[in-house]
């Protein structure tokens, strides 16, 4: 299976990643090799598998309890930009 540069560009958009033209060439080649390897899965007969759930024991929710959480300063402290206890994001609406 060959993946086109246009498909790679579309995936890059979905992934919010930029690639230079030079990087795209190398990326397409690596990507095709990996996809060909992964494509071997298509040959496996899985008609007997009825249910894709893996582990059932983790479907219990704990009680919702009020507990102390991190302080505002702790949470905001790692933000590249913050103001008065808020995250600062780029302008979305002018």
């Amino acid at each position, binding site marked *: 299976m060959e993946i086109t540069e246009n498909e790679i560009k579309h995936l890059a958009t979905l992934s919010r990643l930029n690639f230079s033209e030079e990087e795209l060439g190398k990326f397409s080649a690596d990507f095709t090799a990996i996809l060909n*390897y992964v494509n*071997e*899965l298509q040959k496996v007969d899985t008609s007997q598998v009825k249910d894709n759930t*893996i582990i059932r024991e983790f479907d219990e929710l704990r009680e919702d309890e009020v507990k102390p959480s991190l302080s505002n300063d702790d949470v905001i402290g790692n933000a590249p930009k913050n103001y008065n206890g808020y995250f600062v994001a780029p302008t979305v609406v002018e």
Partner: protein
Amino acid sequence: MEIMNESLENVSKMLADKSISSVELVKASLDAISSTQKYNILHEVCSESALKSATEVDDKRARGEKLSPLAGVPIVIKDNISMKGTYTTCSSKFLENYKSPYNATVVDKLLQAGAIVIGKANMDEFAMGSSSETCAFGVVHNPRNFDYVPGGSSGGSASAVAADQCFGALGTDTGGSIRQPSSFCGVVGLKPTYGLVSRYGVVAFASSLDQVGPITKTVRDNALILDCIAGYDSNEFTSAKHQKESYYQTSFKNSIKGLKIGYAKEFFESLQNQDVVKSIENAIEFFKANGAEIVDITLPHIKDALAVYYVLSSAEAASNLARFDGIKYGVATKEYNDVIDFYFKSRTQGFGNEVKRRIMLGNFVLSSGYFDAYYNKAKAVQNLIISEFADAFNLCDVILSPTAPTSAFKIGEKVNNPLEMYLNDIFTVPVNIATLPAISVPCGVAQNGMPLGMQLIGNRFSESILYNVADYFEKNCYSIRGVK
């Protein structure tokens, strides 16, 4: 630095009978770290907090308080595990300046036991890699030979133990990231059963596969650390409500009589490296001669596990890494046109190539038109693999395989061929796919002078059986540390 060569078990006894203090141990550990700096093992050394904690432990001991076996012992943790006030970078440029605002549950447990976190270990970026060469802060070198990789992604953690910088380390294992570096560095590494150890506060790579586990010099040391970190955590939805065990107290029986060891030919069909073949044959002969029975089992779909792994782990990684937007933490680009452009530039600047490759692959298998053919197909094959292991464990107690298809390779040898790099994990990945525990123990040395590892796979929550078999092998057949 003779003391740094000791096992955790031994220094714990020495601390208890006061023939050494924790402050002395921490100083010895800091000396060892500075004399092995060229291997680029640690990203951050916690000298100040370590010395302060060591003084506190020594004071408690002087007052006659009852202490845990880990009290006062220097331990290294992987740099994707949060510890308040330390950097948690995941060896990524994206998180270069990120300081954890809270402790991971495993760190809380270590600190409550009085263990001293001495440093945070380099790794493959976001745990994606098998050689610790994708680390954004330089490659990690194997302490047994500077020219070789330490394996990955927990290459720093395994190296810290092999270089005698500490008496144990925590790693994480999504597809072999504890066991393969343990094999490459000649140390002992356990990937616990999925759900046994909390991942709260550990940066997620592939949440349905990730697990935290100990890397140590000996098998018994490994049990001491697992005793501390295992157990239910209400902060984690996938934490298992498994009865608390003391692996150190109950695992070691010093006998393997009547043990059934499963041999699956599928593990060995593609194996070409004669060093690896011989080391496993040698182990099989040893087990037979000591009263174990070798049972033929079959795992027909194990050859598909690696493809399953790359579909599932990349899909989950793409989702987990979507939160890295440059607003809440991490890299924020300075120049941009609008908010979308801001995301593009921040992510492109922050992530390395391997991480970008996995995000792209993940978004590919999750995109409409491909979801059924890749993601759902991989989940179905995962189910087949799980049932095959379940059938196998009706016939045997543990399953034996090599940990990796080769010993450590040279730095740079595989860095330009991602697929060849992925094949390193061919024996370790099925274990994560099937949510099982497995341990890697040293089992010989290859022609290139680098250590080899043997993997023992157990049924869910059978860590104590793995420890017993591995300990018996280490004591009576092969130990890289020499028999004492």
